[in-house]
């Protein structure tokens, strides 16, 4: 999956830059949240809450260890959005 072609990429990028107080150009798919962007537990919590608000998904139950990079976040949000849409269709 080409992360940068996802619908929500630009919005996510701006959100991450704001939350982690880093320049938007540093928010690239391979950037690691903690090691590269300096995210701490408050940033991660804020990103979870903001993702739910902005992208209308629920990240409850997601294993935080499965998310390491910005690309992981983008793919996760895409997966959750798709799952919700198909739930809505089947439901």
């Amino acid at each position, binding site marked *: 999956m080409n992360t940068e072609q996802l619908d929500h990429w630009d919005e996510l990028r701006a959100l991450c830059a704001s939350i*982690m*107080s880093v320049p938007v150009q540093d928010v690239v798919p391979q950037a690691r949240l903690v090691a590269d962007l*300096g995210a701490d537990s*408050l*940033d991660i919590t*804020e990103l979870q*809450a*903001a993702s739910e608000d902005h992208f209308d998904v629920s990240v409850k139950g997601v294993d935080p260890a499965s998310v390491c990079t910005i690309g992981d976040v983008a793919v996760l949000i895409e997966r959750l959005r798709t799952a919700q849409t198909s739930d809505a269709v089947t439901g």
Partner: protein
Amino acid sequence: MTHKNAVAVTGLGVRCGAGTSVGALWENLLTSRSAARMHAFDAEGTVVVPACPMPGFTPEGYLTAKEARRTDRSVQLAVCAATDAVADAGGLHVPAGRRAVVTGTAYGGVISQESGVGQPDVLYVPRIMPNAGAHWLSAKFEATGPTLTLSTACASGSHAVGEAMQIIRDGRADAVVAGGHESPMTATTALAFGRSGAMVTQCDDPARALRPFDTDRQGFLLAEAAAFLVLERLDHARRRGARIYATLTGYGCTSDAHHLTAPHPEGTGARACMEQALADAGTPADAVTHINAHGTGTALNDVAEARALTALFGPAAVPVTACKSVTGHSLGAAGALEAVITALSLHEGIVPPTANTTRLDPQCDLDVVTARPRKLPAGPAISNSFAFGGHNSCLVFDTPRP
């Protein structure tokens, strides 16, 4: 007099409209240059009243962009002022476990509180909690001893300094960063104080609007500010050769138990507080060289405070100055700001004048220092703070003795 329980004031730092540094504040006090202006409290410009804001303030250089996002403006002011105070003291020369922080604030992070109502983000609670300032200062200065926040409305900053001295006296810390911080610059706060009748809402000249003890006084002006002092064990400060601005020798803490917002009309709680502070310092009333008054320019405070002063010292017996005429009223920061000014007055041997007071209210039988600074003999001075809620705090500072 030995003052064996005195503590040393070795560092000062401020942020306020009347000065972004201690030096700038002092100059403006000596020349009665007020920070007041007409200030729009909301983006739409529907609440515009005279006030003392800090329009150009940023915490840049003191907080990272991430830290700034996590802090209310009030805490940002605190970090800047306290960092300056610690630098002014030449650092904290005691182990982390012997460092303490005491902050005072009336409101906590009220700007963040109001802007987040109904739509709180993850940082809402740690931004608005009143003790946020104490956290940030403890983290910045690696203070792992007692770190506390007091909230007694307009006496918060003064109580913080007094309780900080008690922490040193009790042997619980050897150096304390103590002070107050407030940024009450919201439309709701301005409207509320305006409706309470205590604040000036209309005037021709904001810089001349706050007139303590004057016949034509109309109330106070809202200000944002932070002020911090570094207090140290006196023997420690002397041993390391620190510059000692003043010693803090006495602390009074009493209550009116009378009315939610009005002081006791005879100023009985205020008088008891000054007496307690003088007794604590071992200082007779006739040794006091000047009073840094609470002096809000409200009808109720000024008469009650004047009665308390006259009852204790005699009519017009001691010079009185009221610095809110220049700084405005920064609520929980005010007592600390005036503690800084009192310590500085002793250090410089000068009392700054009360600005704007030209016709003394005959009900206030005081020797108010007006028009120009007055030279001061060495000796003790009192800084007064009397709050909504009837909480009184008085601090006695003295000239350091060899």
